[in-house]
């Protein structure tokens, strides 16, 4: 739950917290001792059950994963993105394992990083699209990577059915 704390404090670098962030952050959260911190953390966990809050948290994770360096590139390296996904989408995305296999598969294009748009759209995908991908429309505005992913999963299903 380091992530949740990082979110609440609006930290910018994984594993680091600056003095400023520490002071400003806790002041804004009205949190002055360990007990209050505990309450804060459990309250935050509750918050995450709400879709909008979780979205905010998820989008924050992208920037957080970038740290301060990669800000300009607007992409997140895969080796950071994958653990983040595993953490964040664990029970929210039944196809998570397939997704992770897909983005790592060298035959499926050339991903070393994920754009912020694709990151954001993935969350939409998990909430809107059914588990069996039945309501996916390739003519919608999904990023190409997600189109390819759906293709990948459907092809695999066909192979298994044979």
């Amino acid at each position, binding site marked *: 739950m380091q992530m949740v704390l990082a979110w609440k404090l609006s930290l910018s670098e994984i594993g680091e917290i600056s003095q400023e962030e520490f002071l400003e952050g806790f002041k804004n959260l009205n949190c002055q001792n360990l007990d209050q911190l505990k309450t804060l953390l459990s309250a935050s966990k509750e918050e995450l059950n709400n879709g909008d809050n979780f979205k905010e948290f998820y989008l924050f994770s992208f920037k957080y994963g970038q740290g301060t360096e990669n800000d300009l590139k*607007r992409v997140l390296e895969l080796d950071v993105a994958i653990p983040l996904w595993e953490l964040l989408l664990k029970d929210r995305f039944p196809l998570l394992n397939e997704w992770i296999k897909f983005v790592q598969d060298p035959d499926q294009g050339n991903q070393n990083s994920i*754009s*912020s748009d694709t990151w*954001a759209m993935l969350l*939409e995908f998990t909430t809107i699209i059914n588990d069996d991908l039945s309501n996916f429309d390739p003519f*919608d*505005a999904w990023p*190409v990577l997600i189109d390819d992913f759906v293709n990948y999963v459907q092809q695999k299903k066909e192979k298994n059915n044979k």
Partner: protein
Amino acid sequence: EESMLEDIDFLSVILQYWKDHCSQILCLRSIFLCLDRKYAVPSTTILNIWDIGIYLFKENIVEVNIISRKLLNGLLLVIENERKGETISHHEVKECLNMLFELGIYETYFETKFLDETAKFYAVECQRYLTEYPMEDVLDHFKNRFVQENRRIDSYLKPTTRDLLIKVVEDVIIRNNVEEIINKGLESLIQNLKMKDLQNMYSLIKRVDALDLLSNAWGMYIKNKGLQLIQEEKSMIKDLLYHRDLMNEILESSFESNPDFTYTLKKSFETFINMKLNKPAELLAKYLDSMMRTGKTQRSINHNDIEITLDKIIMLFRYMGSKDVFEAFYKKDLAKRLILNKYSSIDTEKLMISKLKIECGAQYTSKLEGMFKDMDMSEEIMVKYKTAIPKGIIDMKVFVLTSGYWPAYTPVQANLTDDMNRCQEIFTDFYLKSYNGRHLVWQNSLGQCLLRAEFPKGNKELSVSLFQTLVFLLFNDQDTISYAEMREATGLAEKELNYTLKSLLTGRVRLITKVPKSKDFLPTDIISWRKDFGSKQKRIKLNQIQYMETKVEQKKTEQNIFRHRQYQVDAAIVRIMKSRKVMPHNELLLELYEHLRFPCKASDIKKRIERLLEQRYIERDAENNSIYKYL
């Protein structure tokens, strides 16, 4: 057989009766003229004598069952026999029918039954013909049947029967069989070039208003044949030109240049040609190139034929979606032809440009026209240059190319001889005096030389590329040279040197040899000139596999085309979003398809949209992910 004859003979029998009866009635009427005229005719309740006579004849003779049957059978039989080819007495039948008409029972008694029998007769005949005879004969036969039925009407049937009869025949012969006729006959008639028979088919089907069926089937044929043809790259263009010629001829001579069919032709060609995306456009440009080049075949083609062929090429070009592919390759080849002086006629070249201009607008051809302007300008400059500097170290002709018009050439590193360098300097100075502010870059990869070579067996004049020249000049100082030394001396990059050497080692005429004879080049390879070279020809042209002609260059051209397309897609997206500010994804795609002048896959467009999203030109709407907003 016997009863048949009886029925037919019966006709004359009954006619006789009728004639007698008529004259008798007329006789009676004359006798009772006064009574008839003054009493019967004006009255509305009493029939006049003639009418009574008619009535009695009808009631007591014709409508008597057995007579009625025999008469009808006789008539129908006689007509059937004529249809089968026998000669009958038209006069007799006509009189009979007149009689029935007088009796007022022509339609009810005869006509309806007659039409039924006609239908049955032709139904049977059609089936037989369609299964037993080839389609040409079938169509011919059907056509003749119509002629015959019309004659029948003129000969003995009542004119009122005409429309009904023709309709029945049309329905039975054609309407019921249209699909079978088309399915069985269309393809084979086309393949066997049976224009007249196709015309028959067209006219027959036109009668029953079923031309759209024919049009669709024809369209399918065009598409399927076309799809076959585009699988074969080598003969594609030649075959397509022929295919189009043939289809056009069919359209004009057999299908009356019907506008619907004209449209079908166009649509079908467009559909199948664009199934192979970019290849046809590229091959068309290549075909044009081989036509435009100098060669033995050029002299035999006269000017009119060339223009006709150009028009046909333009027609194929019109169907293609990837016009930018054609332009890129055409430009590349045109540049080669102009620079290497390989065009057979400058007028033909200009003619082609003017046709392209009419077809695609001035913007499309402005660069191509620029290339011609450069050639003319270069001539003028050379005249001035020769007057200013009459005797240069080397006799040199320079082409000055405006970089925007010509394909992109990159300057290639090479060590020219001192003389060559000096010549280039002198020209550059001269040029910049008149055109201050311009920047000249020498493209040595395009250079050509006329080299005088002394061989023991006879001196030769060699027409070679500049790089080939650099290789040859090395042998002025030595008979053999290693690859490594050659590379050092010429200053050419490995790739460049290898191309050049390959052209000299594997052409038809070989003036140098390499040891070892392997395909690869090692620094230790030894290259020597052939002292024993001899040839009947004084002037020898060495096959110039110049940098421009390799497959690598082709790939480069293709990549440039695609990169250019990406720019166009990006620019279009930005332009559309800028004007609309907000737009749903699907609408954006639709607009793009309308604006873009080349085929584009939805996934490619999506990739460009993603790129623009990343670069913050556009963003997704917060509420609805399918809507984009301009930033």
